[in-house]
């Protein structure tokens, strides 16, 4: 596809463009891909602090994330989503970034709880004031820690967001 | 219908490649691999003769050769391990150098 240059493409919205004539294919394909992605969000097993416990509860029998097709993967290479569950310290931040970097596209970040969203209680020398300082956070879930149901609700928000995506699968985007 | 000479030539070529590798490679492990190649060339000969002579003796012999090749590999690689442990190398020329 290297021969196509920018001008041949049809621009749909900012930053999203397609090969002309492909739109008949693109629309349904887009919907199918988004459906697949929203239906199988695999977060990487990465608990940071208190929220990790509630994250585990969300995966346990009472709430059962598996219902949504969400299973935890230990390796970031197979994960789609990083749940920042807990306080991000400055010592930890590079590690988190590295784990995020090692995830394949498309990847999403959920900031769960006050600490991951904004540092929360810990406005100190050692704590990063919010995961969005160095990561593109997709969904913010307030609470300290949020109830497991709140995490599920956050994941549903993420599913909605995924379903509205346009062509995040194309090489040309 | 494949003439038996095709098999013989193939096994000859294989044997010579094995020999060449054995003579040129410095890594003892690869040298052993080359020996395996040569053994395989011989096996191929045996099986081909056996087939063309309608006699199973060659195949039985091949069978035993494979079993013995297993033993050979075990011992040979054991020697490699011992060499490596003592000399910290698996290269034939370095093993020579370090003899003294």
């Amino acid at each position: 596809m290297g021969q196509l240059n920018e001008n041949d493409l049809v621009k749909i919205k900012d930053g999203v463009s397609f090969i002309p004539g492909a739109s008949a294919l693109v629309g349904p394909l887009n919907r199918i891909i988004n459906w697949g992605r929203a239906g199988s969000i695999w977060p990487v097993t990465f608990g940071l602090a208190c929220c990790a416990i509630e994250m585990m509860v969300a995966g346990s029998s009472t709430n059962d994330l598996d219902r949504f097709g969400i299973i935890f993967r230990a390796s970031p290479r197979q994960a789609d989503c990083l749940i920042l569950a807990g306080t991000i310290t400055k010592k930890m931040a590079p590690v988190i970034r590295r784990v995020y970097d090692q995830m394949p596209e498309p990847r999403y970040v959920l900031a769960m709880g006050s600490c991951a969203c904004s540092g929360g209680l810990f406005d100190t020398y050692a704590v990063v004031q919010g995961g969005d300082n160095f990561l593109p956070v997709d969904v913010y879930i307030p609470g300290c820690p949020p109830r497991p149901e709140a995490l599920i609700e956050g994941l549903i928000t993420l599913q909605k967001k995924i379903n509205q995506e346009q062509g995040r699968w194309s090489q040309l985007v | 219908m494949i003439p038996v000479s095709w098999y013989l030539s193939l096994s000859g070529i294989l044997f010579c490649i094995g020999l060449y590798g054995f003579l040129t490679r410095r890594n003892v492990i690869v040298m052993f691999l080359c020996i395996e190649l040569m053994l395989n060339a011989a096996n191929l000969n045996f099986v081909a003769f056996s087939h063309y002579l309608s006699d199973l003796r060659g195949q039985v012999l091949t069978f035993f050769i494979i079993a013995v090749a297993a033993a050979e590999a075990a011992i040979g690689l054991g020697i490699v391990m011992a060499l490596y442990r003592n000399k910290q190398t698996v290269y034939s020329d370095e093993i020579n150098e370090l003899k003294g």
Partner: protein
Amino acid sequence: MPGSYLPSEYLPILMLLVTGIAFGVLVLWIGKLFRVQRPYFEKLVAYESGNPPTEEPRMRFSVKFYTIAILFIVFDVEAIFLYPWALVFNKLGLFALLEMFIFIILLLIGYVYAWKKGNLEWDN
């Protein structure tokens, strides 16, 4: 006729092999057209629990693996002899049993030796 024998029952296997490989290659190749590929340095760094990789991972292993492999080879060869033996056992009867008994006993000596030498223990 020697030299013109074609083992035709193996043909499906060959075809399935080709199918299997082709399936793998095709899936990956077609997927390549649709995937987002944005490799960059940090993404391609080896995974090590979120730490920067510290050293070359290819290093030596415990020699135990080697002794296990030797035992494996010997038993594999033994099994290879057992298969034809098992098939012709009915025909040969007690003689074959004795024959194999001696064979296995000989190999078991090596097995017991390895056991006694502690090559089957992993936690030292």
